[in-house]
């Protein structure tokens, strides 16, 4: 099977014109699939669902497979309404990022993508999802190569594996908005400060070591996960797609480097270092702490 690339959903909150410019550029990048939609915070409204759908049409016309991603942490009825509208969009495949979305998609009798926050940690749960219509899945971002190998050795046939392969790691979600907290603003009156932080807001230790990234209600790593140097092990596991998570600058370079590596060109594992919005990490893939860099030359 030929390995390909996908562009994950935008995790940050950018001005509308920046979002549109980003995806206009993405239309010409060598990514087979693009995930669209707001997955982090319901208050973000530069793009509403009709805007995402319009963008989806344009990217589909440019030859991309488009998938609509559902919100990860659901708290209130209006958020469920959006998930229902996604499930009933009638055109594009949906990525379910919590089990409520799974229920709604199953009710529609639709195939879907099982996102990494569904917590598929073993072959049995993957079997559950395959039985109800998942055609593709992503392991939790903390899963190691060895655990993924053990899982896939027992996995049901006919479901494709996509792996989060590049970007700041999505680590946690809260009812509380940490960006608003930083500005001493209540979440309900956050003044959309996320707009000022296109790659999130850096959190460091009291020694000044970068540690995490605050992105509204989401907490990410400060380090940038990269499996650019792991193409061989990813191929050996029959991983179908590598997911690259959007960043504010140099995303085209990131896609280019991964595409070159997939095409078999020799790409230095640290080729992306200067385009990363943080220091490289890959500990999770090697069964270690996520913040670590297992291969010094790669990270």
């Amino acid at each position: 099977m030929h390995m390909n690339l996908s562009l994950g959903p935008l995790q940050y909150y950018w001005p509308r014109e920046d979002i549109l410019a980003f995806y206009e550029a993405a239309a010409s990048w060598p990514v087979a699939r693009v995930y669209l939609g707001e997955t982090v915070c319901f208050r973000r409204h530069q793009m509403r669902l009709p805007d995402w759908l319009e963008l989806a049409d344009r990217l589909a016309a440019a030859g991309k497979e488009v998938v609509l991603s559902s919100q990860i942490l659901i708290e209130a009825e209006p958020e469920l309404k959006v998930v229902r509208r996604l499930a009933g969009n009638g055109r594009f495949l949906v990525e379910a990022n919590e089990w409520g979305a799974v229920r709604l998609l199953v009710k529609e009798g639709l195939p879907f993508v099982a996102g990494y926050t569904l917590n598929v940690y073993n072959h049995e749960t993957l079997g559950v999802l395959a039985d109800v219509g998942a055609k593709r899945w992503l392991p939790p971002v903390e899963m190691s190569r060895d655990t993924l190998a053990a899982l896939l050795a027992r996995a049901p046939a006919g479901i494709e594996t996509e792996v989060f392969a590049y970007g700041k790691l999505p680590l946690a979600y809260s009812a509380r908005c940490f960006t608003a907290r930083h500005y001493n603003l209540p979440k309900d009156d956050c003044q959309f400060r996320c707009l000022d932080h296109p790659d999130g807001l850096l959190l460091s230790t009291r020694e000044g070591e970068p540690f995490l990234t605050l992105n509204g209600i989401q907490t990410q790593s400060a380090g940038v996960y990269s499996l650019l140097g792991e193409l061989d092990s990813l191929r050996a596991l029959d991983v179908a797609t590598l997911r690259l998570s959007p960043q504010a600058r140099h995303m085209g370079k990131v896609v280019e480097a991964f595409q070159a590596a997939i095409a078999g060109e020799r790409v230095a594992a640290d080729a992306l270092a200067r385009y990363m919005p943080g220091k490289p990490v890959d500990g999770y893939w090697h069964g270690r702490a996520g913040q670590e860099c297992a291969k010094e030359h790669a990270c």
Partner: protein
Amino acid sequence: MPLDLVCPAGNLMSLKAAVDHGADAVYMGFRDNTNARAFPGLNFDEAQAAEGLRYAHDRGRRVLLALNTYPQPDNWPRWTQAIDSAARLGMDAVIVADAGLMRYAVKNHPRLRLHLSVQGSATSYEAINFYREHYGIQRAVLPRVLSLPQVENVVKNTEVEIELFGFGGLCVMVEGRCLLSSYCTGESPNSAGVCSPAKAVQWKETPTGLESRLNGVLLDRYGKDEKAGYPTLCKGRFEVAGETYYAIEEPTSLNTLDLLPEMLAMGIAAIKIEGRQRSPAYVAQVTRVWRAAIDAVKQNADGFKAMPGWHAELNKLSEGQSHTLGAYHRPWK
């Protein structure tokens, strides 16, 4: 039946303390990583579990078994054997997070009662109803991220009983989808059953104060007059844009005593007390206060007022000696 008091049992002594002081049910885990408090020296082997069950059942109380980590593919039988043991021992319910494990339980032990663990991370009735339709779950424990009106909306739209956290350690993140601990240490609640594991903690006196580290990462530094707490990752002081503060959450505990009338009115089935890692004395004290409070609210919901003595006693036991209503109270967010 409404507002059942569900108390933590980290060992047999705590189980007895909880039962003796008025818990309607206790929850426990086996002595391995099949549960989210896989701490050294904690939890039950089968013989102890059987003794605990006898003690509780003789007094008309129930025992719930937490099997709420996510099974690993290599060790899948460890989790299914734990389900088998729970059925054999006569557990009143198992608290499960993983869909594959629920499917196993339903198939092999159809009479075993299933509760959806908070680690299952279901925050909407749509998610809860998925587990209801597929595995017949009877109860769901809600993550500590919803406000009370949001909780009420869940209750109204599912026939599954809803259990809420009432007191104890406060997870700021939606449970079951927090990987901060594994990012820092390699071990997370989902995969290893621990958060901010003790073996990764380092304390050091320095000229600038007492430092706490987790796998080398500086979580906090305490001045002479500051009380140092357990270095849970999300409750450290960090720097953001030149400011040093509790960027995620203060070291504080959840305490919802004041919300009991609302919880009763909306039909909450059970209140969970966190803390299987705490001492039997702690369990006894907390259980006694909550028993009195729940009895009082059931007797007279309109006239209910938390007694100052209850708060004083609970605050003494709380992390950071302070408490919060957490996400149940909108401004916290």
